[in-house]
């Protein structure tokens, strides 16, 4: 009986892990498949779908997504850092209420935020704002609460005695912020910025309302195409964009992001 249970356990573990990896393997295989129909002949490979990516059809939306995500990461990084500083470090009056207000967008589904923003823009006659400007504004609303929360967590978690020690040793407030607080919360800020970049780059539920022809993001271009065809070039786009995201994470990690935060958290 015990044996049966443990066999069942290992089988279920294996089955779930295959369920998780199966679609990823299938997409990578499809991106290398020679025919336009994705069939069961994985023993022939071709790289031509990846070569097809180097055209304005895919480069333009990629660059648009990249631009938007960079601006969103920068804006929400700076705003989130300042907001968390004011609320957590300075403890300005009413900080609890202000924090709930800053985090309130998290409890609203993205598709609802999307409807609200597009409704707002069309009511005040700013349809011309659709495309990149509206995408940036909406993605900042989406990313800012996450960044604020991550920075606030690292501000609340770092050892306040370090700050007090610096104060006793005669550092003024600007020096303490520059030399003690900022280096201590750097991992939190960097992972917030990385996260903002990724959720903007991959976003669908907000972007779907705000793009316009000729000014669209990569995921929206892909899903619009997917509704008509399962073209293997889409598999290549997806694999390339995942590789890009992994590179971004790796770069931020190099600057001192997540693992530093993990080590900091485990102390």
């Amino acid at each position, binding site marked *: 009986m015990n044996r049966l249970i443990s066999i069942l356990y290992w089988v279920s573990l294996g089955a779930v892990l295959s369920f998780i990896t199966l679609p990823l393997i299938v997409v990578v295989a499809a991106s290398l498949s020679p025919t336009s129909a994705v069939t069961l002949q994985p023993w022939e490979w071709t790289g031509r779908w990846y070569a097809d990516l180097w055209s304005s059809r895919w480069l333009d939306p990629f660059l648009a997504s990249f631009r938007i995500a960079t601006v969103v990461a920068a804006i929400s990084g700076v705003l989130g850092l300042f907001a968390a500083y004011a609320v957590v470090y300075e403890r300005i009056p009413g900080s609890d209420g202000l924090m709930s207000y*800053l985090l309130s967008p998290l409890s609203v589904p993205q598709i609802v935020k999307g409807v609200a*923003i597009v409704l707002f823009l069309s009511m005040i006659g700013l349809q011309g704002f659709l495309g990149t400007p509206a995408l940036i504004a909406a993605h900042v609303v989406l990313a800012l609460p996450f960044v604020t929360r991550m920075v606030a967590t690292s501000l609340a978690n770092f050892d306040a005695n370090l700050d007090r020690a610096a104060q006793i040793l005669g550092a003024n407030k600007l020096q303490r912020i520059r030399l003690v607080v900022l280096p201590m919360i750097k991992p939190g800020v960097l992972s917030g910025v990385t996260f903002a970049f990724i959720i903007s780059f991959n976003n669908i539920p907000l972007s779907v309302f705000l793009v316009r022809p000729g000014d669209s993001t990569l995921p929206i271009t892909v899903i619009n195409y*997917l509704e008509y065809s399962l073209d293997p070039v889409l598999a290549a786009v997806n694999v390339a964009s995942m590789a890009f995201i992994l590179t971004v994470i790796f770069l931020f990690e190099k600057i001192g992001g997540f693992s530093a935060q993990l080590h900091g958290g485990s102390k």
Partner: protein
Amino acid sequence: MKSLALDLHPPARRRHPPQWFPIAALTPSLLVLSVFFALPMGMMIGMSFAQTETLSPTLEHYQRFFTDGLSLAGFCRTALMSLLVAISVTVLGYPVAYFLARSTTRWRAVVFALALAPELAGVVLRTYGWLIILEDRGFINDLLLHLGLITSPLPLSKNLFAVVVGLTHVVLPFGILSLMTSIQGIDPNLERAAQMLGASRLAVIRTIVLPLSVPGIVSSMLIAFTMSASAYATPALLGGAGFKVLATMIYEQVLFYIDWPFASVMAMALLLMMLAISFVGVRYESRRRSRASVSSGGER
């Protein structure tokens, strides 16, 4: 009082940010959220009560939501789909979470990476993978036709089944993480003690691990439910016209019918469903906390 104390410092050392600085630091965030979140949300709520032509107050759109049949059906489909995903995420995630919580071998890192890797791949890539697998001319139907087990393709896509499979895959890492955290909190000595006292593996799981991990099961189901109910891309691609949920119906109302009031009502329905579920979660958590503090206080 505070400013008086500051004034006692010699002027040369007084390089503090001025008093207004924190407020100035907070203002841009508050402005951005007010203009692009609070104000639009207020407009949307107002719009759901507005008469289409004259914008005078009315409940007609809510009335339409409950009486036109289609909308309420979409609401129920969304709830059913989210419930099925919540159950399958929790059932599938449990063995992986248990392994991650208890294993000390080097395989733990491998399984951890495998379980969480899909999260980095983005929703489109995974949904595309499931489309290739489940389509009429997809991987599974192709295989079964080749083997001669079926003569016509099984209807695996553009229905509830496909959406539940796709969403389960999207949400599973989050379910695994919350189950894992909960199982890690169970003292492994309890399992060892039960085993030494002669309990079978099944009895250990049924009488110790499962009951003690109920908070993890609840939070995994809540996360899965809310993530599924608000998902857009997966139901749009794997469900399509064959299986419409609130998220895809809202999209249609906005972009095809350009019916602002009715789109707002549907968005309100989705928002209220989410808030109700989060409320249940908060209530459960606070009751559990208070019970836990009472019982641990009694033991001491």
